[in-house]
């Protein structure tokens, strides 16, 4: 038996998405063509865009489909930066939280290295949210130099929701982008209401297919594209529209939003049950994830005296899938930058796991996981002690 507890990495595709995908993939046509096949595909894509816009709370023309959340984030970071310096060369500062996903941090670092951008990271408080006072001071002192503020809607390792509406208020005229790939479909999310300039959402996090995502971008704003070509998507993202994936994305999002409240309650209950049982099974564990306001299913815990790669290997051998931090390009596990930003020591960050529960999980699965956990932690500890002696 395998138990999937890595829903924040990618979620199982839902039935609505599968049937939309399989139907659409049979259809011939390029949405940019003028002939009847092209028109038919164009209609499917635009219907999907329309549906998705209702679910996101934006105008259909504000949706720019991309190939991944990473691409949408790159488009936002680089596009806003290039726009800012084109209008005023002094606006070289990009502000993000310290615990953004690498798909935000790395494009910023690239701009620092190659295009003289300046990166400023907003520190994280002990409760897993950005330090708004820091941001206020920063804007008061250097607001005129800031090209873009990008803060994730919820953190993918801690689950904590971020005060985006506050950020928008503090930011004034400075563009604000939010990476909402973990939030959309799981917690209340409405683009217009939130007021950000741009947001990133991704299909495979909400039960849709891999390989499609979107940058939601306020009308009237033209970002400098990364991909040039056929001029699709407001000339901001060229490339033949991936109609099957887009149609499936909308279907998945519809299903996720329709079931959002019920799923949230179910997943939150499973999470709370899991944490309460895990605390009994492993009394010295430390919970790092945030309980509220937070995503429903994220659990992050430190198991003192272990190494996360040993825990993952042992859980995997028991058929349980979880995750930890990230790996470098060689695949070597590295302590999570999110936990380090939270002020957790490198050793404790190295001994931490993220378990992300989804609506397809059951209480029986959680019970099974709790059953094997003590022996997993015990073996990981003995491997660590042995290693330490060398």
């Amino acid at each position, binding site marked *: 038996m395998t138990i999937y507890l890595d829903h924040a990495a990618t979620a199982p595709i839902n039935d609505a998405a599968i049937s939309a995908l399989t139907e659409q993939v049979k259809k011939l046509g390029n949405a940019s063509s003028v002939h009847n096949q092209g028109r038919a595909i164009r209609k499917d894509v635009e219907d999907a865009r329309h549906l998705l816009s209702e679910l996101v709370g934006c105008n259909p023309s504000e949706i720019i489909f991309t190939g991944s959340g990473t691409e949408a984030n790159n488009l936002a970071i680089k596009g806003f930066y290039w726009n800012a310096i084109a209008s005023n060369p002094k606006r070289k500062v990009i502000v993000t939280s310290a615990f953004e996903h690498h798909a935000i941090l790395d494009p910023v670092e690239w701009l620092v290295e190659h295009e003289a951008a300046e990166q400023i990271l907003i520190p994280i408080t002990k409760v897993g949210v950005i330090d708004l006072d820091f941001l206020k001071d920063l804007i008061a002192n250097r607001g005129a130099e800031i090209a873009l503020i990008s803060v994730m809607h919820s953190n993918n390792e801690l689950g904590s929701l971020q005060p985006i509406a506050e950020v928008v208020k503090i930011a004034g005229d400075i563009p604000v982008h939010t990476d909402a790939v973990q939030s959309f479909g799981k917690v209340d999310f409405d683009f217009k209401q939130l007021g950000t300039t741009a947001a990133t959402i991704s299909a495979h996090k909400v039960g849709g297919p891999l390989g499609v995502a979107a940058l939601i971008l306020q009308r009237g704003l033209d970002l400098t594209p990364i991909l040039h070509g056929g001029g699709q998507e407001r000339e901001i993202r060229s490339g033949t529209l991936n109609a099957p994936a887009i149609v499936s994305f909308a279907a998945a999002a519809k299903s996720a939003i329709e079931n959002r409240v019920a799923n949230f309650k179910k997943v939150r209950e499973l999470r709370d049950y899991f944490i309460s049982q895990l605390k009994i099974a492993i009394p010295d564990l430390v919970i790092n994830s945030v309980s509220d306001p937070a995503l429903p299913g994220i659990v992050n815990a430190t198991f003192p005296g272990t190494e996360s790669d040993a825990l993952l*290997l042992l859980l995997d051998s028991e058929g349980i899938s979880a995750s930890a931090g990230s790996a470098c*390009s060689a695949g070597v596990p590295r302590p999570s930058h999110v936990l380090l930003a939270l002020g957790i020591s490198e050793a404790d960050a190295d001994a931490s796991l993220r378990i992300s529960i989804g609506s397809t999980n059951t209480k029986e699965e959680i019970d099974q996981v709790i059953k094997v956990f003590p022996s997993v932690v015990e073996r990981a500890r003995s491997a660590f002690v042995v290693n330490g002696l*060398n």
Partner: protein
Amino acid sequence: MKLIAAMSGGVDSAVAAARAVDAGHEVVGVHLALSSNPQKYRSGARGCCTIEDSHDARRAADVIGIPFYIWDMAEEFHDGVVENFLSEYASGRTPNPCLRCNEKIKFAAVLDRAKGLGFDGVITGHYAQMRENELGRVMYRAQDPGKDQSYVLAVLNSDQLAGAHFPLGDTFKEEVRKEAKKRGLYVANKPDSHDICFVPSGDNAGWLRDRLGSEIGEIVDEAGNKLGEHKGAYTYTIGQRRGLGLTVPADGGSPRYVLKIEPKTNTVVVGAHEALAVKKIVGEKPIWCGPVPATQTQYRGFAQVRAHGAPLAASYTHDGESIRVELDEPLFGLATGQGLVIYDGDRVVGSATVAQTE
């Protein structure tokens, strides 16, 4: 059994892992990240320390159908192997880092971690044979004399050997390549790795100079007469003839060889070929790969001092602290720091580090 397969990304370790699966073991593949700053791609014929190699290992594990993980052993490797390599050279000795890696990493750090995690042992693609017989679980040379790697494994003690599995020991390399192809392992034609894995350029002397400095010193003859200069004594090897850059001809025009390296005075001593002759070897810190021979007793066997050196007929004794070997025929050119491995026929008896030669 539950076994960890150490997978370098090469053909041997991939086939070894696949054979262990066929034999009914529960196998988990592990690639050791030994460099904290790995190169992206292989250059030349090096085969285990690049990101490309780790991808090859992962791909092989996926084809075999076993779980695969990367273990970060960069710190252990640096402390146990690279540092030792440098300090040995700095002391004028010639170390073999592959021996150290087997002793300190593959069958120590990795084996210990595997055991802690509940595994029974470690599989590698080394060419050597483990056999259970009246002597216990002991190691023999590989079937393929061209690939035999028992020399670099002779640093493993009985406890380490108890957890060591070498599924390729009974097979010739060419057969392993054919088998890899048949199994759909696309590393089947990957070239063998050579040289020292952590010296990516292959330029050992340059690598040492970068780390130990390149202080100019004297090249002298056995009487102490200066014949020339060098850039760092440790970049020379006992028995080396080429690259000395000497312009003063020897008496009779016979070639000169490196006889001795004196790190304290940064001096390289050269002389005639005959002066390289060694008949007696003292090795220290003996490691026994099976039953410990009785002390103060003379045995007949073979000594080998290089990974692909010839087995040399010899008599040996030991006193627990050191092994004394008397060769039947002289050996030309032996440096302190080299591994001395004792064989009884094809069985590996044990090893020691060359400390003195006569």
